[in-house]
């Protein structure tokens, strides 16, 4: 099979779906089947790549590409199933953009030519813009998203133009160091992946866009692509130590700041979106170390994060679908209505918090090792700071997920009568979550076999961690516990919730939304949150305010008086005359 097949197949599917009418019933079945075909093609190509002789210079086919290649197909399948169950209107257009996104993602990672990469890069931004606005009020967020992504696209062009001047070719080849090129390309990668300071579109997008779209692009594919580009630029340019440490610091700052923002959110999707940003910090930190351990950790974290983060978004989507809200204050006690969603989200939230033996632990562990290895090189103090930030961020992540899980699923919450009957899980929405939650466990336990060996062959790791052994012990422990429980016949007493010795009144629901109010109200956090509230950390809003200040001035000058305009002509003429005179 030809290596271009995934791109061509998805393009054709996208085109055909675009021109077909909106047949909902068949599309719901056909789209997942097509996505499955995609993954079959992908797996087949992974083992039997057929790169025509003529095009070898146009195709990148190394381990990095293969890794991302497989997971694009994987997320395509999982999210097509979920979308088929979630999206109600204009399914043909939705899936058309969906497959166009897949095609562009394949194009980005397969291309060995910068121009082709930029074209697909831009297309994936446009499809996100279109998909965000499906049956939602996300117009403002979509506008902001496309401006940031399109702007980063322009910077990518600038970076590539500089590389072209250096190497004389548009191929993705190794090049001499160039600050402008690196900064521009890294900015594009950061914007796509959602690292600070270009993260600002992610909370808005997650808040307003349909959950499958958020899970599909900002939570998984955009992470894959952004980090792919960052890893790629690290692999083709030799980075000076000072830049490496800067990238690591940016990553660490992202981890801490975003997780602090996440702690105080009151809606589930915004909370998750800040974690999406925070987790990018880990990947950037890992890749920024520039040593094999750190990069392996960053890449593995990229995969893991995409898995558990999309699982969390999908779970939230399920919650929102039944309860029509994602405000933490208004939710609670859903565990008994949505058990599968609860379980899979619990697993995913343990994974994101880095609890062993789940995948999130393994990749964070790799990243810590990479950072430790980096301390041996230059700037040991700063590297240690980064390590501390990463560790601390991990703890805060766990804390904020305890809040989320409590607020959504635990606590006693009374819903209006009759509402509870609608609280049912739909197979097409739950099945993807099960797959993703299982992947969290499997990738954690078999990390060596599934990730390290295929990617790196043999990576020397310091420290002792045998996930299989640990998992075995955990399972043995659980089984033993269950056995003891069954044998000893301990009596169980169930009581209703109470406070101060009295039964709870319906209005005494503890939502969990204010778990960390103390942080919010304590100085200096209160001051910083206040600034964040005013959008002073939002690059987009700050630039917008500055631009509109200048615009006000310019509009004041354009007052419609003809004589003024004529005097401008005179002034401009004089300048031209002077220039020509002295030339």
């Amino acid at each position, binding site marked *: 099979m030809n290596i271009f097949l995934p791109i061509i197949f998805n393009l054709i599917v996208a085109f055909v779906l675009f021109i077909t009418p909106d047949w909902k019933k068949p599309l719901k079945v056909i789209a997942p089947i097509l996505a499955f075909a995609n993954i079959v093609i992908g797996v087949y190509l992974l083992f039997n790549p057929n790169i025509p002789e003529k095009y070898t210079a146009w195709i990148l086919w190394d381990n990095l590409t293969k890794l991302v290649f497989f997971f694009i197909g994987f997320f395509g399948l999982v999210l097509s199933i979920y979308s088929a169950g979630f999206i109600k209107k204009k399914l043909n257009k939705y899936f058309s953009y969906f497959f166009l996104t897949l095609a562009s993602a394949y194009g980005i990672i397969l291309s060995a030519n910068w121009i082709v990469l930029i074209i*697909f890069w831009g297309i994936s931004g446009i499809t996100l813009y279109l998909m965000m606005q499906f049956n939602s009020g996300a117009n403002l967020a979509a506008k902001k998203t496309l401006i940031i992504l399109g702007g980063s696209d322009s910077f990518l*062009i600038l970076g590539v133009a500089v590389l*072209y001047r250096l190497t004389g070719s548009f191929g993705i080849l190794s090049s001499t160091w160039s600050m402008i090129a690196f900064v521009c390309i890294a900015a594009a990668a950061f914007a796509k992946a959602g690292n600070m300071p270009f993260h600002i579109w992610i909370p808005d997008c997650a808040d307003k866009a349909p959950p499958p779209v958020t899970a599909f692009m900002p939570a998984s594919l955009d992470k894959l692509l952004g980090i792919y580009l960052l890893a790629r630029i690290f692999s083709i340019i030799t980075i000076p130590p000072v830049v490496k440490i800067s990238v690591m610091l940016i990553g660490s700052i992202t981890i801490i700041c975003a997780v602090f923002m996440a702690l105080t959110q009151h809606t589930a999707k915004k909370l998750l979106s800040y974690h999406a940003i925070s987790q990018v910090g880990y990947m950037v930190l890992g890749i920024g170390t520039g040593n094999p351990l750190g990069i392996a950790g960053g890449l593995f974290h990229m995969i893991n994060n995409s898995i558990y983060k999309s699982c969390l978004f999908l779970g939230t989507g399920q919650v929102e679908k039944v309860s029509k809200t994602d405000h933490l204050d208004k939710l609670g006690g859903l565990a008994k209505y949505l058990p599968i969603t609860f379980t899979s989200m619990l697993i995913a939230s343990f994974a994101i918090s880095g609890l062993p033996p789940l995948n999130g632990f393994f990749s964070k562990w790799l990243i810590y090792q990479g950072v430790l290895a980096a301390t041996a090189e230059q700037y040991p103090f700063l590297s240690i700071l980064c390590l501390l930030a990463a560790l601390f961020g991990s703890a805060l992540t766990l804390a904020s997920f305890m809040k989320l899980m409590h607020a959504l699923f635990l606590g006693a919450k009374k819903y209006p009568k009759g509402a509870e009957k609608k609280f049912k899980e739909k197979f097409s929405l739950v099945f993807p979550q099960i797959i993703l939650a299982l992947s969290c466990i499997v990738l954690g336990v078999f990390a060596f076999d599934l990730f390290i060996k295929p990617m790196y062959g043999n990576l020397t790791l310091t420290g002792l961690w045998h996930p299989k052994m640990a998992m075995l012990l955990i399972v043995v422990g659980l089984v033993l516990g269950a056995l003891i429980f069954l044998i000893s016949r301990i009596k169980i007493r169930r009581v209703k919730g109470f406070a101060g010795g009295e039964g709870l009144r319906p209005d005494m629901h503890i939502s969990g939304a204010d778990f960390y109010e103390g942080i919010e109200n304590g100085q200096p956090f209160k001051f910083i949150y206040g600034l964040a509230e005013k959008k002073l950390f939002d690059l987009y809003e700050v630039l917008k305010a500055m631009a509109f200040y200048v615009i006000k001035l*310019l509009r004041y000058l354009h007052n419609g008086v003809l004589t003024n305009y004529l005097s*401008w*002509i005179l002034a401009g003429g004089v300048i*031209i005359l002077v220039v*020509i005179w002295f030339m």
Partner: protein
Amino acid sequence: MNTLPYFVLIPLAGAFLIVFLNVLTKNKVRVISEILANMITLALFIMTIFMFNKSGMYVIGKWVPPLGINLVLDGLSALMMSIVNLIAFTATLFSINYMRRYTANNYYYALFLLMLAGMNGVLLSGDFFNLFVFIEIASIASYALVGFGTEADELEASFKYMVMGGIASTFILLAIALLYSQFGVLNMAYISKAIANSEFNILLRFTLFLFIAAFSVKAAIIPFHAWLPDAHPAAPAPISAMLSGVVIKTLGLYAMIRVMYNIFGFNGGNMLAYMGLISIMVGGLLALGQMDMKRLLAYSSISQIGYIILGIGLGTKLGILAALFHLVNHSVFKSLLFMNSGSVYHRLGTRNLDEMGGLNKVMPITGGTSLIASLSISGMPPFNGFFSKLLIIIACIQSGHPIFAFWAIAGSIFTLAYYMKMQRYAFFGALKESYKSIKESPFFMSVSMIILAILCLVTSFLLIPQLRDAVLTPAVEVILNADTYKALVIK
């Protein structure tokens, strides 16, 4: 080369024929002028396709230059002519439905063809006096067309345009007089030869200044731009499409390039590039602040013209190629955007973005084409604007001006910002209750928009080496090498 005069004669004759036929039928039959105008513009466009890769001279009445009048065709004028007549065709097609809202259609089509004749004349004219005459024909027709609605603001806009355009025309006439006083000929090739052989003295410098200032007014380069934001929105939509799409480029940019590069052999250092940078940023910012759809588009034209002269001002082969490519692309998508705004105005009767919203639901063709055009002009792949932006940035870097490249990128982000603003306000979002019953724009308007939307994708293929060598490279050669133009005329 015997077909050259027909590019001027056909539309000129058509203009008078339309008026004459309407006098005969007592203005009862609108269809006559519609069919005639469309056939003429279509025929002219088809004729221009055969002009590529040809160059030559036509001498009128066998009076050889420098005394006689000659028409000259080279790569640059062939490129410009094809795009002018293409946009003219789509504009007349669009006018069929759109102009039903106005009375006195016959005058509209007559003026339109007159303007077209003037532009074709400018592109072909081989001597300065005819250049001036054709510029005036096109300008005066466009003054009349801007004020065609005869409402207060339209007349005001037309008046401002006329005053500033008049100043520009005076400058041109003065400059021509100075040249004639010095060399005693009006033929452009002969003057070019004489300038090459003489010292670049004060008088010539002053003449050059007059030309550049005058053409800057016509091309609406900041600070000579003030007429454009009034005139382009005030005109009927197809005329706005013509004005922003091709008129400012023909009367302003083409004439300026011809005079500076071919006649004076003067590339101006980076002067044009700096003018372009100012236009990019100021035009972009002003567009960002607009809530009037057509004014937004008008300021955007100023900004985009900035990109074109930035590319030309770089003076490198790649820079000029990028500029000409962007010129072609901008004609396509800016005409399309003005037609979109016309289509919205046709159905809603407003240009105010605040009063629109959710129009994609009721006008999918207008919404879809305008999304394509917006993404193209903002330089998003895979549309044509992306490639011209790419070329301009690479050209800036290759010529050693990273700051220019950065500035161009900042401008392109502003472009993206205000087109996304337009999309958000007009086409996405919630549809107003009162607009629920609105229909898609009429047939010919939709066809015309679809043609241009397809061109937004197709013009990218001009960069394929075979096509590029047939279409763009000859034009670049003409600009870079002043002698090729002279050699066409002086045997």
